[in-house]
């Protein structure tokens, strides 16, 4: 049944006979793996690369540079391998961090669920305690009181419209409960489909609990497995990640069955609910609901999870990979406006990371940035870089502002990159200080992040800060930040002056922690803290209300307020200076291209393809893709040389939602048989089309024109842009897409 190619010689797709045969097979083996032989592999791949590059990049090089070019390409292959390795290491670090963050967010709920599971299990066991051992071990369910048939059911509210994020959460929950000794299975809505009925979920239970694949879905197999001494002392937890997508009747049947067995098989249900508490009532009939003993749990919202991930990945540890402003904005907008799932956010970051390592020749250097002492690594690598790569590094756009006296050596490249790492570290610390202040205004971390990464905002901030400084110097009565509306960062700075004393103390404490790495800043924060402390002491700490009210009338109160104002000013000024000195976006630093991914277009096109639009654009602007000399000069005029399907689709645009096949054919025919010199445009009167019949070239027979028409219709049908005629309207096809 299985057709296969000979293992050692993969069939080239060009061999026609084999191809024709394979084309009509539902599937075939294109080739089996050629075992890796290091002696053979390297030159072969290098050769492939060479061929490819010669064909596509010839315009960049002179022929005399051929030898050099080949060397470079072989080198290139080596560096490709290094980049692949660097990506593997860096992404696995990021991935592990993300997983830890997500687990950390849920750990409290997981513990709560575990405690509840244990309590429920104890309750079931206490009921079972009234039964004798013969009853407990008999292989059939017991007829007992209805109250003893209750199934403890945890309803976990996911606060998610999309359940895709919860898959990971419930997997983590499962691992957590397993680590605590529970027997756990994960079921999904696929196990509760009307088509396969209850047997599918019993099979799933048996497969996961007992690890057997029986011929008959029989719950007694589970009962006898559970009666084994190793299994008997722990609860059976069944997690259903998306209850609302299950088939109601299958789920209720499942519940009824479990209720019969619950004393012998202490099953505890955990069900993910995306909507409200009413969900089980809507889905399940009363007779099933009757057996549920619900308990509520709530997970964090997607926005909270996103914030935590952003904090850990983009701001936290240095991973040797960074994103630029536009990418950050794209990530934020994609999350807020389109998708709203953390899963796709993570995927987007991964695509960005992969694209970066593919596109950036020097990205393999990022690998060294993971180590504490990266300079040695960088130095070692940069010194060994071939001349061409060093030249490339110094020709990066970010190096334009580089000091002209900087020698173009590996050493200066290495120190340039280590500089970025240092800068990024300080940047992260200061950003955290800013973000802590922003938290009092309930600002989202991504919003502040986007502004902090924006190089333009950085430049305008510089000039604004100078203006603010001037205003403060002139007069204290005017709000110096009035000119800075619209900037999150300035809003935060301004609000620092309005914080209550207690919150300012808190803020300074966090700043102290975050600024530990920057000695100068740390000193200033400490200074401010002691100033605040002495202020408090002078004023008797937090003055109680009675004293305050007395003081309110006095002059001294005004002085106190003014002094206090000074502390606030100082705090605001400190934040401002931090931002000015340290919050320099990575995109303003030389060599940042090596670790920073900025190409938002590539990211967007890889993440969300837009076939509906792009396929239409391909058809309507075919000459722009094909880059042929014959059709480009026509502009918007339809030329006979154009791709047939392209002509047909452009003609279809003139029709309504129904296209009369007769007219369409006539139009098509008149377009393709029209002599090029006489091309007037696509809007032509029917009479002129008729006249064209007489000058039809001889080689374009009726059969040929009709065949071309048919093929174009088939191709449009394959793209889904046309619906075929139905019996009611045999002479019309229907257009599907209107506008791009």
């Amino acid at each position, binding site marked *: 049944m299985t057709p296969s190619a000979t293992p050692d010689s993969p069939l080239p797709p060009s061999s026609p006979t084999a191809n024709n045969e394979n084309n*009509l097979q539902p599937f075939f083996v294109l080739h089996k793996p050629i075992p890796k032989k290091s002696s053979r592999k390297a030159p072969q791949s290098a050769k492939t690369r060479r061929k490819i590059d010669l*064909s596509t990049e010839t315009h960049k090089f002179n022929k005399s540079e051929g030898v050099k070019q080949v060397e470079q390409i072989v080198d290139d292959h080596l560096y490709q391998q290094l980049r692949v390795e660097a990506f593997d290491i860096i992404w696995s670090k990021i991935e592990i961090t993300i997983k830890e963050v997500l687990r950390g967010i849920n750990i409290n709920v997981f513990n709560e669920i575990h405690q509840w599971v244990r309590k429920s299990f104890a309750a079931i066991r206490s009921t079972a305690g009234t039964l004798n051992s013969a009853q407990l071990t008999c292989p059939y369910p017991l007829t007992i009181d209805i109250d003893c048939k209750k199934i403890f059911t945890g309803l976990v509210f996911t606060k998610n419209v999309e359940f895709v994020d919860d898959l990971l959460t419930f997997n983590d929950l499962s691992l957590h409960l397993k680590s605590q000794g529970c027997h756990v299975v994960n079921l999904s809505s696929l196990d509760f489909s009307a088509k396969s009925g209850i047997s599918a979920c019993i099979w799933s239970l048996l497969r996961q609990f007992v690890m057997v694949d029986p011929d008959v879905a029989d719950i007694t197999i589970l009962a006898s497995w559970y009666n084994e001494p190793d299994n008997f002392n722990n609860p059976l937890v069944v997690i259903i990640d998306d209850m609302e997508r299950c088939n109601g009747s299958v789920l209720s049947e499942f519940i009824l069955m479990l209720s019969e067995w619950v004393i012998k098989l202490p099953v505890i249900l955990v069900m993910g609910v995306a909507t409200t508490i009413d969900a089980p009532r809507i889905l399940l009939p009363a007779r099933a609901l009757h057996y549920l003993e619900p308990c509520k749990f709530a997970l964090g919202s997607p926005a909270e999870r996103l914030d935590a991930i952003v904090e850990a990945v983009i701001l936290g540890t240095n991973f040797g990979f960074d994103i630029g402003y536009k990418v950050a904005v794209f990530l934020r907008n994609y999350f807020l406006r389109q998708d709203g799932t953390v899963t796709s956010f993570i995927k987007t970051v991964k695509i960005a990371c992969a694209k970066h390592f593919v596109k950036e020749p020097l990205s393999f250097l990022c690998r060294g940035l993971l180590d504490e002492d990266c300079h040695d690594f960088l130095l070692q690598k940069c010194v060994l870089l071939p001349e061409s790569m060093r030249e490339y590094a110094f020709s990066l756009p970010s190096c334009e502002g580089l000091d002209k006296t900087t020698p173009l050596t590996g050493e200066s490249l290495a120190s340039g990159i280590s500089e970025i790492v240092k800068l990024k570290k300080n940047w992260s610390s200061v950003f955290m200080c800013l973000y802590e202040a922003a938290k009092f205004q309930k600002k989202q971390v991504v919003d502040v992040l986007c502004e902090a990464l924006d190089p333009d905002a950085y430049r305008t901030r510089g000039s604004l800060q100078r203006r603010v400084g001037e205003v403060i110097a002139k007069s204290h009565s005017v709000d110096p930040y009035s000119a800075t509306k619209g900037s999150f960062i300035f809003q935060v700075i301004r609000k620092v002056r309005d914080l209550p004393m207690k919150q300012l103390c808190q803020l300074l404490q966090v700043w102290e922690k975050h600024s530990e790495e920057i000695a100068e800043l740390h000193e200033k924060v400490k200074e401010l803290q002691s100033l605040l402390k002495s202020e408090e002491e002078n004023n008797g700490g937090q003055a109680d209300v009675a004293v305050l009210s007395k003081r309110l009338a006095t002059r001294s109160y005004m002085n106190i307020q003014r002094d206090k104002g000074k502390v606030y000013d100082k705090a605001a000024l400190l934040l401002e200076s931090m931002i000015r000195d340290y919050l320099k976006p990575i995109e303003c630093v030389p060599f940042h291209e090596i670790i920073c991914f900025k190409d938002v277009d590539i990211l967007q096109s890889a993440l969300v393809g837009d076939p509906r639009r792009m396929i239409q654009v391909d058809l309507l602007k075919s000459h722009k893709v*094909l880059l042929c000399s014959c059709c480009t000069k026509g502009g918007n005029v339809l030329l006979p040389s154009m791709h047939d399907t392209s002509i047909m689709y452009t003609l279809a645009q003139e029709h309504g939602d129904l296209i009369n096949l007769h007219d369409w*054919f006539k139009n098509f025919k008149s377009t393709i048989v029209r002599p090029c010199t006489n091309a007037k445009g696509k809007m032509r009167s029917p009479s002129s089309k008729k006249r064209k019949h007489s000058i039809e070239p001889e080689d374009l027979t009726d059969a040929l024109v009709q065949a071309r028409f048919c093929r174009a219709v088939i191709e449009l049908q394959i793209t889904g842009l046309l619906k075929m005629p139905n019996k009611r309207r045999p002479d019309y096809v229907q257009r599907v897409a209107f506008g791009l």
Partner: protein
Amino acid sequence: MDVNEAVDEEEFGFSRNYFLAKELRGSAKKSGGKLSDLKLVDEQELRDATSKLETKHEKEIVALMESYKSQYYQWAFELRCGFGLLMYGFGSKKALIEDFASTALTEYGVVVINGYLQSINLKHVVIAMAEILSDQLKLKRKSQQPFSSKSLDDLLIFLDGSHMKESDCFVCVVIHNIDGPGLRELETQQILSRLASCSYVRIVASIDHVNAPLLWDKKMVHTQFNWSWYHVPTFAPYKVEGVFFPLILASGGTAQNAKTALIVLQSLTPNAQSVFKVLAEHQVAHPDEEGMPVNDLYTICRERFLVSSQITLNSHLTEFKDHDLVKTRRHADGQDCLYIPLTSEALEKLLQEIG
């Protein structure tokens, strides 16, 4: 804000275009021309011409395909990273993807699914993949049962094994037209997505239909297929993909219908043919009637010993209806009548042929 406005504008554009198109149908272009007015060539001639069609811009198409070769390294890299590649854009991508697989993925086993075909047994595909993988991992399978006797779930579990030995070991499945007719069912897509999410499997697929993304939910897109999209228009003719599509200028006309009817009838039992003949003769004799009442047909057929009971007749009728040979409509007096949706001339010709 401006992004929102742009989105609104785009949506408005959509609906405006739609209503404009609707309007256009009512007024401007109502020529009512019929396909039968065209001088259509014979079907065989049309088919011959179709098979001999030359491709326009062949040189440019070859250049376009060549230009994608520089991306092969990137594609292979992303596959290794765990992404699935999804190729879209106008033109057949079959040759492109197979060329990619046979030059850049030689280290891995590659199985190709032709999704443009009508029926595809995914289990056979998964068995083939499992066999390749076990060869690759050099597993000794003597004690194990053969893959062909394992269930699909077991096979998928095998393909989803943990990467213990080599991290860079997988079988690649190439799916031409993952949106094709044989793979469009939700259940099939779910199996494919489970297959794609296996740790030992990587997927390269192509889509051609503009609405293909509607086949998948977010779980499939982001966690299972894990698509990385590539817009790679090739403008290559859909030669194989279009093989099973009817030629629009060949399927019309009475001659065609009578011909198909004949082919269907010839495959039926002589008794069934005779039942059809009774109905056809009645229709030819009474061209102005709505059709033949079921009871009358039954009586005549019984008299001629063509059927023994109403049940046998009904089974014949079901067969006819399934193939659009016979239809029912309501007679003026309320009873259901059977009729053959062919013109009298076509019917007479058909009677001669089966006679």
